[in-house]
């Protein structure tokens, strides 16, 4: 079962933080289809999160088809986050490792790499939208 935590002073709305944490758990295999998510009451008791926030997060997850609410028994994981085939993942990772190596050779530090990656991702997002 996942344990949620909310960064109280963060800019990301609390319900999105919960959604992200579920997605992360799915991606990392901590949650698998058929698993039950904690009830709203359990999340409130464990993490001190507003029950409406938890409900909103679960509704969001339900809308994108990751979980389903079963009448009277709770919320269950329905799907997993199938990103790409394992072989493709291995290849992409190897490419990225090579790129990072190059970046370090060029004198970039971790922070520079993060900034660059963020800018590229943002630019890519713009390209898709327009």
């Amino acid at each position, binding site marked *: 079962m996942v344990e949620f935590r909310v960064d*109280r*002073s963060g800019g990301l*709305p609390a319900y999105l933080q919960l959604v992200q944490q579920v997605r992360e758990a799915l991606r990392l295999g901590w949650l698998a289809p058929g698993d039950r998510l904690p009830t709203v009451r359990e999340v409130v008791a464990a*993490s001190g999160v507003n029950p409406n926030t938890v409900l909103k997060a679960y509704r969001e997850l339900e809308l994108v088809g990751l979980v389903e609410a079963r009448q009277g028994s709770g919320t269950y994981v329905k799907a997993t986050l199938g990103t790409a085939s394992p072989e493709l993942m291995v290849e992409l990772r190897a490419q990225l490792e090579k790129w990072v190596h190059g970046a370090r050779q060029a004198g970039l530090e971790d922070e520079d790499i993060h900034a660059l990656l963020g800018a590229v991702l943002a630019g890519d997002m713009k390209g898709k939208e327009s």
Partner: protein
Amino acid sequence: MSDGIAVTVDDLGKRYRRWPHGSVWALRHCSFELPAGVVAALVGMNGAGKTTLMSVVTGLLAPTEGAVRLGDDASRVSFVAQDKPLYRHFSVTDMLKVGASLNRVWDQRRALRWLERFQIPLDRPCGRLSGGQQAQVAFAIALGSCPSLLLLDEPLSNLDPLARREVTKELLGEVADTGLTVLLSTHVVAELGGVADHLLLLAAGTLLEQGDVDDLLASHVRYVGPRSDTSPGPGQILQARHTDRQSTFLVRLASDSAPRVDPPWTTQTVTLEDLVLVRLEMARSGVRGVAA
């Protein structure tokens, strides 16, 4: 959690007469609605009118103008005042009996559960409890009266950090269990994330901002980029800051627009604290009319 409205506040105003200095409006033109089951934070600096607003909603204070309407399923209101007053010579058990005596509906087990959770000695006179323990007794009485709307004036102010966390958690548990609507006043915005889902921002007796916290955060964004006099993206500028090389714009987006900037500009999310501080600053410098 019902879809109803817990309380509707309509053009509320409260004027205090301060003889011989005429009168002052502690609250003016306040209108808002709280959906049932929300946890709303009433944020404002000291003297903004938070206590006045709560006292009027509670019914302890008659408004000078406007009206407060309680929803059909929110007819029971409890109020815990900022100083958490108790009868000093009464034991905790006697204080619970006061609560039971003054209310048509009383849940003794609920009140006792709260006291047990925080290990409050029942036989001790309230005057000999610590400030934090007194606050717990006040909360227990408020919950014992089975409110559908609970108003808490600076509920966490007397508590140590651990107790703040625990009280928050337990209160949210009560919300989850009973669908209770909570309105709590505070000036510590940093602790509200994940706790409050609704914001009422009050300054000098006027509501500056109100609404769902997530919606508010989603509709504000910060653009960061090279020095510029104009905003690089859509939205109404609430705050512009410049250094020699860099400019930062905090903007409010129209409901249907998304932040859209070209590189090298980047967007950053806005925290609740950022938003509150910017709005208070604007209010102080006299900018009032930000269209919602």
